Structures are given as C-alpha cells and as structure tokens.
C-alpha cells in the first residue's frame, strides 16, 4: 500500500486534513515525510494547525535541522565562491542551494545534500584546478568512473572537501550529453540572474525546466515527491506573473524539454493542486509516474518493486543510447565482479 505517500501529498496540499489523523496516521505521515526528505517542508506547511504534542516536537526538530542545513548550504556556496572568484567565471547555483540563496518559497525547509553549480563548459578545466587547489578531492578512484563522467556526463566526477566533508557537483549543462534532449547551456547561463554576493541562479523559467528535466528526463524518480514539491512551490511563486506558463513552455521547447515540463505541470497540478487552469488530465504514462512517485508505505518502506525496477532501467535508457549503455553496464558488471 502507498497510502502513507498519498497522505503526505494530501497533507502538503491541504494542511487541514491532519485534524482527522489518529496516532497511527501521524506516525505514518511523519515517517513517509522523513523518508521523502519533505519533513521540514511539511513542518512549515502545518504551522497554525492543531498538532499533537509529540508530532509538534518532531516537526520543530525538522525545522531546526532545516534552518541549520540552510546555513551549511549557504556556507558551502560561499566557500566555492571564494575558491572560484579569481577566475571571473559566472557560477550558477543549482537546485536546493539556489532556492535558499534566492530566498524562494521552494527553499523553505528544503533539504540540501551536495552543492550543485553550473559553469561554462570551456572553463571546466580552470574550475576543476581551482577547486582542487582549495581542498576539494576526487571521490571516485577508478579510472573508468572518471572516464565515464568526463565523456558522457553533464558534470565533473564528484568532488568532496577534505575538511568539511561536503560534496560539490560541477555541471556544464543540465542533462547528460548522451541523452536525447539537448538543452541550450549557453542560454541557461546567459539568462541567469545575479545574487547580491555575485553568484547567480537560473532564470525563473529555467529553474522550473531544470527541476522538471532532473525529475523526468534524468533519474529513476527516487525522491521524486520532493522534486515535484520544488516544482509546485516554484510555479506558485512564478505564476503570479500571468504570462509565465506560456513563456515557460516556449523556453522548454527551446531546450528540447517540453515533454518533461508538460508532465511536471500535469503531475504538480494533480498531486499538489498547483493552480494551473490551462493544464489538462493525466495521461496513462503520467499515471505510471504517479504510481512510482507514491511508492512509499507507512513504515517508510519503498513499495511497488516492479514499477521501481522499471523506472530504474528506464533511467539508464533515457540517459544513454543502447550500444553505449550496453558497453557501460558490461564494464560496470566486470568491475563489480573483480571487486567482489
């Protein structure tokens, strides 16, 4: 059963529904929210609701943790800014750190793991050198893994800082070059917006497009409820401008990502109730995505094994052409055997 994930989505959309929860319902809700990394977002959404004392304490913990997480995320961004400042290269913050740095609603309670940044592809070698000089080190040690990232991925192999133990992902575009859609990385950078500290974030339309691309054209939808919640929050804030959706779809076409963005709009509306009157019903494929997104039970266990495997396989399929994928999986299998 995926009732817990459904309950989480419903509580995020309509906080009043928690009034009807018993102890078991609360436990399932909090467990699922924690597993989906949405517990702090839920905590902010439930402000003002009558909540049992035990649940209120857990939610207060989550808010404190998110506040501290935001401090750490911004500090990590500042460390990268200082390391890259002499290069005079535009550095664009991505994902959670960007939402927090830009003061967007989507940043409220947003869990941030790694620092993600986007830079111009031709400046990657300089950026890499500057980060290594400032204390970041490679995480991957096999030469094949390094080769894999450099040849076929949209980012450098991950780096970790030796003192602060935090990872940085340096992107040069928002999808692997081997994937079919080819986003216009130059336009992403050209239209980005400056923050007071000199770092940058993507334009509003590109923020939504990147979130949609990350969710529906890249990974296997693990943790997808959180990514879709980002999209809902971004849309609610940006659609205050009446022509935003039309401009967003134009821009998505330009980036070759209209399909992913339209799916994001439909699922955001149907799960989180994003006010999008012009967006229609879910397709059959959307329903499969919805089932994958909601695959979490009241003990925070992943459910729907088959559908999760299917999306996992699909995530590789959409990232690489078949022959390249076959070669990659063969090499990884050999490495796995040699390691075991």
């Amino acid at each position: 059963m995926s009732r817990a994930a459904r309950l989480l989505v419903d509580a995020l959309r309509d906080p009043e529904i928690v009034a009807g929860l018993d102890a078991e319902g609360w436990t399932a809700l909090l467990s699922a929210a924690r597993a989906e990394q949405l517990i702090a977002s839920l905590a902010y959404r439930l402000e003002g609701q009558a909540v049992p004392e035990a649940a209120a304490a857990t939610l207060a913990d989550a808010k404190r943790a998110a506040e501290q997480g935001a401090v750490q995320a911004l500090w990590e961004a500042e460390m990268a800014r200082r390391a890259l400042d002499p290069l005079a290269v535009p550095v664009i913050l991505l994902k959670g750190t960007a939402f927090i740095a830009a003061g967007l609603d989507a940043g409220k309670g947003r869990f941030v793991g790694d620092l993600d940044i986007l830079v111009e592809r031709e400046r990657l070698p300089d950026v890499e050198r500057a980060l290594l000089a400032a204390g970041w080190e490679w995480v991957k040690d096999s030469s094949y893994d390094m080769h894999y990232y450099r040849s076929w991925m949209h980012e450098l192999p991950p780096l970790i800082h030796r003192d602060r133990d935090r990872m940085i992902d340096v992107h040069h575009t928002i999808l692997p070059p081997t994937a079919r859609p080819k986003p216009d990385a130059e336009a992403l950078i050209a239209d980005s917006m400056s923050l007071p500290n000199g770092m940058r974030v993507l334009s509003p339309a590109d923020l939504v497009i990147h979130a949609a691309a990350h969710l529906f054209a890249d990974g296997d939808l693990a943790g997808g409820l959180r990514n879709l919640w980002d999209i809902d929050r971004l849309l609610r804030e940006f659609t205050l401008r009446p022509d935003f959706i039309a401009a967003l779809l134009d821009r998505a076409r330009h980036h070759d990502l209209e399909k992913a963005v339209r799916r994001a709009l439909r699922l955001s509306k149907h799960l989180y109730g994003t006010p999008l009157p012009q967006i229609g019903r879910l397709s059959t494929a959307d329903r499969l995505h919805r089932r994958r997104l909601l695959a979490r039970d009241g003990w925070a266990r992943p459910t729907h094994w088959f559908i999760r495997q299917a999306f996992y396989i699909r995530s590789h399929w959409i990232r690489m052409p078949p022959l390249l994928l076959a070669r990659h999986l063969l090499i990884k299998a050999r490495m796995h055997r040699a390691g075991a």
Partner: protein
Amino acid sequence: MRHSFSVRIGPVGFRIGSVWKGPIQALAELYRDYPAPLDGIADFTVRLEPDDLFRRWLRPSVGIRGDYILPEAAPLALRHGLLAAEMGMNLQMALGQRRYLLLHAAVVEREGRALILTGESGAGKSTLAALLGERGWRLMGDEFALVDPATGLLHAFPRVVSLKNEAIDLFPGLTAERWGPPLAGTPKGKIRHLRPNSEAIVRMAEPARPALLLFPRYGFREEVREIGRAEVFVRLTQASTNYVNLGEAGFTALTSFVSKTPARAVDYPDGPAAMALVERLWQELAG
C-alpha cells in the same frame, strides 16, 4: 509491518517493526514496564528486515533499517535479533536526534544532580553506571546523555543496559526477572541485558542538573587527574554524535556544559575501587 512494538525511553518514542516474531517478543518482554510513546506517536522507526529475499527463511539474517541507516551496518543472525533492535534504536538516536545534544556517556543521578561518565568503548561506563544504579543512585542511561540546549539539563535515556562478558558476573544479587536472555557468540562476545530498576523507569521523565563529569579508564592503577576545559571540550565533541549537525546551538550547549561542570580523568583497577572513588569525588567536587 507484521510484528511491531512501540516504547518510550526517556523523552524519545520508538516504533520497531520486524518480519520475524522473535526479536519483537524479546523486546516487548525486556521493555514491559516502559510506557508507550507520547500521544502514541514515535519519534523514530526501526525496521528489522531480511537483507534479501532468501534471508527471511534460509540462514535468516536481520538487516537493520529505519528512518536513519548506516549502509555498512552488518546484518545479525536471527538469534541475535534483539541486539539488532537495540542497535537500530541507538542508530536512530546517533544519526537522527536533533532535540538534544547527544553525548556518548552513562549518567546516574542523586538529589537532582547528575554524574556523567564518558570515555571510549571498554572504559567501563555502562558497567559503572549499572553498579551505581544498584547502590542508591538513579540510573539515567548507560549509552547517551541528552543535553537540552534550552535549559542545560540532562534528560534520562534509561534503555536496558547491555552488559558484556565478565561484567555480567558483577551483579550476583539480582533476581531473574531483571535479566534478559543470555546471548552468546555475538560480534561483541557474550551479552546479557539488565533491566533498570523500577525507580529508573518510573522517574525517567525527570531531568537532572549536570554536577560532575568523569572520564573513567578500566584496568589501571587508581589515579585521579585534573583535565583542562579545552581538552574536556574537544573530548566531548568527539563523544557527541550530533555536535556538528546542531551547529551554533550545539556549540553553545557544549561550552556552557563544560564551563559549569567540574571534570576529572580517573583510572581504576576494579569495580569496588571505582565505587569508592566515585563517592569520594562526588563529595569533593559535585557542584
């Protein structure tokens, strides 16, 4: 899950689920006198699950899962399922606790004031706390000291005490109902759980003011050494599982704790010497 048990230890509620009945039965028996989580809502969930499809029946091995997991935590044999549950609960505290600054330490209380015993594994803090708990002190916990950043008070976390190897023989006078089942051949040798006495359980919601901090070391000639505040601070950052995650709140709580609590390093050769030493230092130093 098929089998489950919920319990409150100090201020923390746990829900433990398992695909096997055995570990849950053993846990419910050990914690039979403890209350349910506040409002019936657990703070943390632990799941005992097979590592893969076959491990449920064939040489069953218990994987430790939950809200927070360590990917490298090795599964345990089903006959040690109780241990897996305990480790799972400790793991949730170590990785997920954000309300209190957590120190890896044992705590006992007298007249509202707390004695904190901390040190590396094998220093004997669990054993000492359990011995003191049978000699007029209230056992507040043998694993974690919970410092409330808002008040500076210590909260009790009196889980059952897991005694190892020779330490089990130091409690000859206790009745059978105080003991859990003997567990032989665990990764840490022979283990037996000691259920805290009723005072420790009944009063577990009462916090205490930190009054004395000791760094005991077992197996050395008796000696007491002064220890500077800076060193105490650094040692406690290493003894805390969540100091870094708490950020500024953790720093403020810890510096306040260190500046108000007298501390000594103590070496002791055996249990009786340690008891006498603790009583003497308590008279001299406890603030």
